Structures are given as C-alpha cells and as structure tokens.
C-alpha cells in the first residue's frame, strides 16, 4: 500500500455551544511524520477522531483520506492503524483473543506486522486476561494493534505515555521507520523532545485553529530559538496567551 494523504477542508466541530474546531484547512503529506501539538483542549484529539469517523463534523466540512470522503462508510478505515491515548480492552478477554477479534474484523490474517509483539516480548502475556496486565503492558498491546495491519495511515495519540523508556525507545524507532514502509504518520504529543525526535512536519493547534503549519526546522528558524519547547512558548505568547 502507498502512504495515505489526508485532506481537510473547512473542518468545523462544535460540542453544544463550545466551538472546538473553527474551520481547519490542511493537507497531511503522504509518507511523512506529522506532529499535532498544542495546549490542552486545543482540539487535537477531536481532529484525530474526525479523521477516524468517531466524531461527526459540522455540515460543510470536508475530510478525505486518499480521496475517499469520510462520511459513514467504514471501509476506508482498512487503511488506518490507530493507537488511542488510553488502552482499554474488555477485561476478561486475553490479548490473543483480542488480536484474533481484530484480525477477524479486518479480514486480514496474512502479512501481519508482528515485530512489536516480539520486541516487546509480549508472547507470555498474551494468554492472560487483559485485566491482569499492567498499564504499560496494555499500552504495548495497544501499539501492537496499531501497527499490526501495516496501515498506510498511522494515527498515534500520545504514543509513549505510560511506556517505560526501553519500550518507548522501541516504539519510537518503529515509528521512524514507518514512512520508509509506505506509512503516513500523524501523532500527538505533549513531549516536545519526542516531537523533535520523531516528526518532520508540525501543526500547532490553538483554540481550534491552526496557528502554525510547516516543518519543525522552519519553525525553529522563524522563531530563532534552538529548542522546540521555547519556539512553542513564543507562538503562545504571540497569540496573546
């Protein structure tokens, strides 16, 4: 599969009176790693969930993955691997049953990417009910699920939260190799060091609008700061926050 392109046109979303996204126009380039950053409640998770079809946009919004409009037909999600912020699985199922369920739902049993399963040494934990696994182990399982079907679009919401440094290192290394294997990566993170390490492209979301769009290098050059963390603070100051 070739890496996916995501196109957003005038994407709006409101929850009641709260306007979470105020007309986002964007294009996520294929085969690159794009980081979605911004303060809490900026709309990052909502934007991700819109792409996944978990949240319905306001009428007039356009969301396309590889030219297929996201409008209720679920088949485009065959291309997507998703790692949510908190891994929460049915507590009485074992990891193996969970993976079986997902491979069954995807109808894809061949050519699975089980690299993370091996590198996280999860084999021994797979036959235990999920509720007996530690939070970190569940998060590892979560990462395995995201990569398993070799998606052309990988969406990672705070991927390393809850992982120990070794596991986080393994995951980051895997993410960095994804573009070479034909996968577009869209990730959110609050760790600027992680963003600098992983991403080439950056979207800075502030109050439901994109306050910066470009490469990380461009942002650093523009702000004259050596570190992303300071550059971000500058952006926030400029926005009057």
């Amino acid at each position, binding site marked *: 599969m070739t890496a996916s392109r995501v196109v957003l046109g005038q994407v709006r979303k409101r929850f009641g009176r709260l306007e979470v996204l105020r007309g986002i126009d964007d294009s996520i380039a294929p085969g690159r790693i794009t980081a979605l950053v911004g303060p809490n409640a900026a709309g990052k998770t909502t934007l991700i969930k819109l792409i996944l*079809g978990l949240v*319905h946009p306001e009428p007039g919004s356009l969301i396309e993955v590889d030219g297929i409009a996201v409008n209720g037909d679920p088949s485009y*999600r065959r291309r*997507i691997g*998703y790692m*949510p912020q908190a891994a*929460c699985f049915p507590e009485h199922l074992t990891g193996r*049953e969970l993976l079986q369920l997902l491979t069954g*739902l995807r109808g894809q049993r061949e050519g699975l990417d089980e690299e993370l399963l091996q590198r996280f040494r999860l084999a021994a934990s797979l036959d235990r*009910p999920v509720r007996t696994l530690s939070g970190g182990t569940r998060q590892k399982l979560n990462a395995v699920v995201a990569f398993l079907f070799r998606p052309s679009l990988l969406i990672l919401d705070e991927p390393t939260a809850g992982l120990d440094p070794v596991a986080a290192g393994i995951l980051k290394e895997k993410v960095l190799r994804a573009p070479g294997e034909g996968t577009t990566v869209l990730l959110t993170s609050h760790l600027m060091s992680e963003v600098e390490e992983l991403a080439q492209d950056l979207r800075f979301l502030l109050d439901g609008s994109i306050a910066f769009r470009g490469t990380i290098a461009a942002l650093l050059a523009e702000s004259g700061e050596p570190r992303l963390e300071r550059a971000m603070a500058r952006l926030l100051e400029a926005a009057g926050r």
Partner: protein
Amino acid sequence: MSVTRKVLAAQLRNVARSRWILAYGLLLLGLTELLLRFGGSGERALLSLLNVVLLLLPLVSVVFGTLYVHNAREFIELLLAQPVSRGSLYLGLFGGLVLPLAGAFLLGVGVPLLLQGGGEPGYLRHCVLLLGAGVLLTLVFTAFALCVAVRLADRAWALGAALLVWLGCSLVYDGVILLVTTLFGAYPLEGPLLVLIFLNPVDLARVLLLLSFDISALLGYTGAVYERFFHGGVGSGLAVLMLLLCAAVPLALGARWFRRKDF
C-alpha cells in the same frame, strides 16, 4: 453480518466470564431452589417465582447493560476505528449482552424447575411460559439499557436513568393504574386499562403469566375481561408481539443515537 457475529462472539466470551453474570445465575438458582423446596406445591412455587422474575430480571438487565456499555466505551471506540459499521457493532453489543443474561436466567431458573418436574398437568407448559416471558423481559430491558447508555454520556446520569426505567415499569406504572381505577371507578375501565397494560412490558408479562395459571379471579372484576382477551391464542400472541415491540422500539432508537454519537 459477519462483523456482528465476530463482535458478538468476543462479547459473549467477555460477558460470560464476568463474575456478575455468574453471581446473577447463582442467585436465580438459589432463589428457585428455595422457592421450590419451601414454597409449597409446584403451582404456588411457580407463582412466587413469577414475582421474582418480574422484579429482578428487568432490574439486572437494565443496570448491568447500562454499566457494561459505559465501561466498554474506550473499547467501542477502538472497534469503531476498525473498518466496522456502527450498525453491526451495535447489534453485536446487544446480542453480546442479551445472550449471557438470558443464558444465566435459563440455566439458573430453568434447570431446577425442570429437574423438580411437578406432577401436575400443565406444569411443563407453565415452566416454558415463565422462561419465555423471562427471556422477552431480558430483551426488552437490555434494549432500554443500550438506549440509556448510548444517550447519556455521564455514568451517574445513565445509571440513574436506568434505575428510573426499572422503577417506572415495576412500581410507578402500577401506582398510576391504581390511581386511574380509583379515580374513575364509576366508569367502564376495561378498555383503557387493557391499553395501559399493553404499554408496560412488565405488566404485559405479568398478565400473560397470571392468566395462564388460571387464577384470573385474583385480578378482580377486570380479570374476566383480560381472561376473555388473553386466554385465546390471539390475545397471548398479541401480548408476545407487543413485548417484542417494546424491545424493538428502544433498540431502534438506540441504534439511531449510536449512529449519530460523537465518541
């Protein structure tokens, strides 16, 4: 359809391993045994059992269902991020709740009932009727549970609403009927009461069962009307149909909300 089946199979495993389902089945088993041993002859024990079924089944179905769907929220999100349509996932969720709940009921109540096997004629028919009505009530109140859990995102609100549904159907509704009969006692009420009873699944199940036990005299002067209405195949058939409708309407409403929901 295959998505529904796969989700259902996984749900079934998950729910069936839950300690709550086991506790529910054991509770019913214990109650049934107790009533059969100490509740008098087969017919009378069945009557007491009927009251347990009418009170306990709706409560457990609606509360367990609501809490389960709320707990599964993140997992539902993960499943919806797969190439899975919302409609089939919803049906899988419903089936995955109904089957274990109905299974626990059928085993917990059905096994001791059938083992006891009273010699009276019609005992078996009454047992089957009781089990059938229990399964229908489980369907109805699981559908209510899904409806409530999908609509109300807040856990406490959802649980409160679930309890209100149960309270309304089990107690408040009867109070209203009683009020109506005392207030308008001077008028011929058989028709309106029949309609009122047809609108509450718990009442429907109760009348359906009581009449089959040949104790319609207990229902007072309107009993004769119900007897005439329900005793024929048409009346009972209509009652079963109405119970199915009581499940279908909240199920469809919940599906509609589920399709439009923002997760």
